[in-house]
């Protein structure tokens, strides 16, 4: 591995491949989810993973943390979780000489990679505590603000099946996630592999192949990837087209209540830059935008009642948009 500060593009690719291969030793399949999660991390953003239980979401995040040698913490969200359980709190302690004072006890959010498991089970108040940390990269407790470590990523999960007793994330907070990835059920072969690996005497272990500094360097390198004017204009047209008024997509006009914010455009561009580098290119292309669009936009399209009632998916709308908005 080369020095992170002078990371070359080849080193970028090699490192990314190493990371994916290393994680792949533990996680079977889910290459797309892994790739996009890595892209999300390298973009400096947070990722929301949605999938039914038992698909390895937690394992994926934990393994990523190990491979990237990042300080990892897991927060299991439950309805009784309090904000202080996330951020930390002041506790009283004896300082000796009969004196007592308050000391801030950091919460699990103080890590490089935070797994927020089943984030939709916690109350909005608790959710907001995490989301503030995601946005500001700081935590404020009793008027005192504490910076979070860098790099700082939140990989949140949610279960799409159990909706009872859950608190769906509001749109404004969903918008803070760079990507939302759907974790699908493995294929039969993949499931077979999973069974072989996880029920054997020895389970695979991943080792660290990169550090947090590498990640930061890769982030900085990726931001310099040039994007042509017509491609960036295409991104702008896509974001505008997600809004029903004047959209070229009939699906958007009919089923979308509100479209993506400029954060969606940022997600598209940042993700496309990293994808371009991973594909061995030094510039962003229309194909990169098209590949990133579903992950970047599916959680940013607010469907109206008719869309929800008719079972229209955000992915279908994104696909329609990519067709209708000419590159």
């Amino acid at each position, binding site marked *: 591995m080369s020095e992170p500060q002078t990371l070359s*593009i080849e080193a970028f690719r090699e490192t990314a491949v190493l990371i994916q291969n290393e994680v792949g030793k533990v996680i079977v399949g889910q290459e797309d989810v892994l790739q996009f999660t890595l892209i999300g991390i390298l973009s400096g953003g947070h990722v929301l993973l949605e999938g039914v239980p038992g698909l390895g979401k937690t394992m994926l995040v934990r393994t990523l943390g190990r491979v990237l040698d990042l300080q990892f913490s897991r927060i299991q969200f439950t309805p009784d979780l309090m904000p202080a359980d996330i951020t930390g709190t002041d506790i009283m302690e004896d300082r000796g000489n009969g004196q007592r004072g308050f000391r801030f006890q950091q919460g699990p959010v103080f890590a490089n990679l935070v797994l927020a498991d089943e984030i939709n089970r916690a109350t909005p108040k608790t959710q907001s505590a995490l989301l503030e940390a995601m946005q500001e990269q700081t935590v404020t407790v009793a008027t005192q603000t504490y910076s979070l470590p860098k790099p700082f990523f939140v990989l949140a999960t949610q279960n799409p099946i159990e909706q009872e007793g859950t608190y769906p994330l509001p749109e404004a907070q969903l918008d803070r996630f760079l990507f939302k990835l759907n974790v699908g059920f493995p294929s039969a072969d993949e499931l077979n592999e999973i069974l072989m690996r996880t029920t054997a005497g020895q389970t695979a272990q991943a080792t660290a192949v990169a550090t947090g500094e590498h990640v930061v360097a890769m982030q900085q390198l990726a931001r*310099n*990837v*040039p*994007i*042509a*004017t*017509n*491609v960036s204009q295409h991104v702008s047209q896509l974001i505008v087209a997600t809004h029903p008024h004047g959209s070229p997509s009939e699906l958007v006009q009919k089923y979308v209540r509100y479209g993506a914010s400029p954060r969606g455009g940022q997600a598209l561009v940042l993700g496309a830059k990293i994808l371009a580098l991973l594909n061995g*290119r*030094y*510039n*962003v*292309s*229309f*194909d990169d935008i098209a590949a990133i669009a579903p992950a970047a936009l599916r959680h940013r399209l607010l469907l109206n009642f008719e869309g929800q009632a008719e079972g229209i998916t955000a992915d279908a709308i994104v696909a329609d948009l990519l067709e209708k908005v000419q590159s």
Partner: protein
Amino acid sequence: MAEGDYLALTKQLAAVNGRFRLQQSLIWGPRGALLGLLLAAIVAALARLRPLLTNQELGMVALGLAGIGLVVGWLWAWLKRPSLNQQARQADAALGLQERATTAVEIAEGAIATTPFFANQQRQDALAQLKAIDVAAALPLNWNRRDWLLLALAIVLLGMAVWLNNPQAERLATQRAIGQAIAEEANELEALAEEIRQDPNLNEAQQEELLAPIEEALEALQASDTSQEQAVATLSEASTELRELSESVAPPNLQEELAPAAEALAENRDTTELTEAFQDGSLNQASAATAQLAENLPTFNEETLSQLADALAQTSESLETTDQPLSEAFQEAASALDAQDLAAAQEALEELAAELAERGEETAVAEALSQQAQSLADQLNESRQTVAQAGAEGTSEDQQQAAGDPQAGEGATSGGLGGGQAGSEGQTQGEGGTAELESGRGSGLGSAGPRGGDAETVFVPDAVDLSNVEGEDVELPAECRANPADCGGLLNETPSEFEDETSIVPYTDVFGDYQDAANEALSDDYIPLGLKGYVRDYFSSLEP
């Protein structure tokens, strides 16, 4: 960006763009030719409905339009000069470069910012990809099969249109023959007009008189929308005007006018030359004879002088009603001779001689003008016949026969027209009518009418001079003129080829019907424009 790299990039993009334009020219060239042939097809369709072009001309038009379309199509592909950025986008889209070229160009042009490291890496990557592509293989010169099939179909259809007979061919040939004839006659009229202007024997007023109808006719012939009928009518009108001018300026028949004077002088042997001159109607000769007479006066004896005085007095008397000034001149000479004033008589005779000489000159000028006007009228009449017969070649026998058949339709009318014109006082019908039937072989318009080969023959009568034709006058009783219904006896006296009087219908009973028919024909525009006046006048002159 290094200069060399930038040049290499532009060169690569130019090569791609050139190939792209060549590809486009193979698409747009045939499409342009197809568009040209489509226009030609429209022209071909029109040429089959209207007399526009011959098949050969249509073929040339089709070739020309196809060629122009082909060139325009090619030019459309080649003349469009895209900017470097557009070339880059074109290359990215066509060669699957994934925006490498566009990004490299925009970095070079400063449109987007990046680190020098990335700029260099990206440029090298773009150049490498461009060089690695076989442009010829990536942009094959494909023929758009559909366009070429349509083009072939269009060529076949147009070929058939050119090869098959055009139903308008005959009509077109006729139209063009008419147009050419009109143009040629217009040129002839221009030459005639110029001749008149250059004629030193004509004064300005005379030139104007002669030029007026010619210039009017010329203006009508040179108008772009002049039809054959209008040309014939115009020439006919001009010819008539010139003929009328000829008649109006023609000097009187001196032989007739001076006959009484000649008779009065015939018995005197000293005035033999003068007598002969008057008999010949030659004023110049009479002037010379009178001058000689004045010169010879002193040689005459008293008796001769007295006889001469009597002769001159009788001559004066004979001319009193027809030529007052000449009569007075003769009387003056006679009076001087009676008064035995030789000098006065000589002077009077010399003045008379001068007067006769002057008259002779004027008569000669008038005669020349009249003859010239008549000649022009004849030439215009010939032009009219030429125009009327233009396009008549190759018409059917029936049409040709109808054109020359004096019995057909207007032929009989022309005879009646001539007769009607000749008879202005009362109801006159003479042998002139019969003569007119024979000479009424006016020119026919033949098949040159606006309906082409299906046009009916229109008989254009000649205006015939009936002044020398002896007719048999039938004087109508006064009560017939006032009350035509009372003219039962007239029918018996009216010359008619019908011997059976019971078959004769009173003229007044049928005139109204014929007049109605004439008015209907006039209003329905059936009668040629220039002849409407004649028809109207004819029926007006026949009114009881």
